[in-house]
């Protein structure tokens, strides 16, 4: 191993520790990956004695975020890949658990995604339920099995606004970062 590489690995480790990041992944997001990571995270929350409803919320947000990537992420460097690729970070602060995902999208998707999230973020709990019902009863399952309900569900279950950012990769592609916070037991209902 070169010194540079050792240095990188150690810094990577301390960075994760300092930021309370319990899980990092970069790669294909398929059904088995989603099952494994939700299981792993569920076990950790169990050790922290989080109640069922918090565990379920984190599970929920992870599933919807990851299924979004699985179905919609673009693959720049990988041809003929069945599932989307992306990154996943699970971290915690004093008050919340954070589910952060990142994936490549086409530039022309930015408008649609940001408009959709902005609409969702402008709504209160009751309005979100109405929006969910409307899309449930009028929307159709897309070819890829998406129902246009994922972001609404994340907002409903997390009880928080969705944070997002687009970082430019090239004219054609951007990196889409989505961050969802789920309040911890002790802070539940305070936001």
């Amino acid at each position, binding site marked *: 191993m070169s010194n540079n590489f050792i240095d990188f690995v150690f810094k990577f480790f301390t960075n994760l520790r300092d930021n309370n990041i319990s899980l990092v992944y970069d790669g294909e997001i398929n059904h088995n990956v989603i099952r494994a990571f939700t299981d792993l995270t569920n076990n950790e929350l169990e050790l922290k004695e989080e109640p*069922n409803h918090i565990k379920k919320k984190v599970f*929920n947000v992870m599933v919807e975020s990851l299924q979004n990537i699985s179905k919609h992420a673009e693959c720049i460097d990988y041809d003929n890949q069945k599932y989307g690729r992306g990154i996943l970070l699970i971290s915690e602060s004093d008050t919340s658990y954070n589910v952060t995902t990142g994936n490549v999208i086409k530039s022309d998707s930015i408008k649609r995604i940001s408009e959709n999230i902005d609409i969702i973020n402008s709504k209160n709990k009751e309005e979100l339920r109405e929006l969910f019902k409307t899309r449930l009863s009028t929307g159709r*399952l897309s070819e890829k*099995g998406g*129902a246009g*309900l994922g972001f609404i*569900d994340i907002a*409903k279950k997390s009880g928080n606004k969705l944070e997002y950012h687009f970082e430019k990769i090239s004219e054609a592609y951007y990196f889409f970062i989505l961050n969802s916070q789920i309040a911890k037991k002790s802070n539940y209902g305070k936001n």
Partner: protein
Amino acid sequence: MEKINIKETDTTPIVVLDKENGIFKFEGKTLPENVSVFYQPIIDWFTEYIKDPNPETVIDLKLEYINTASSKALFSLFLKLEEIAKKGLDIKIKWYYADDDEDMKDVGEEYEDVIKIPFEHIEFEAED
């Protein structure tokens, strides 16, 4: 009619559809890898059932987790079941939720708002 008896996995629920004994039951988590592959046979079964339904149909739904793609599939299934109500026959959905799971309670109420089938909401004590 042939019975459907699907065993539970960690991403799909128990499904029992038994016309003869009047059992129509879904229980567990629903986040299948491919929603259509899982739900199409169930919807097809009800398409047959609706041609000659029982005088009374009670659907028991005790779901612990529903991903959004499944919630869409369940909506399609409920639309199908509305046809039984339209025939003037008794149909009811029993929606079970754990007493510590307000989100699942909400989902039941949301379905009731968009589906023309009577719902009964039943709270049960969560196991720990």
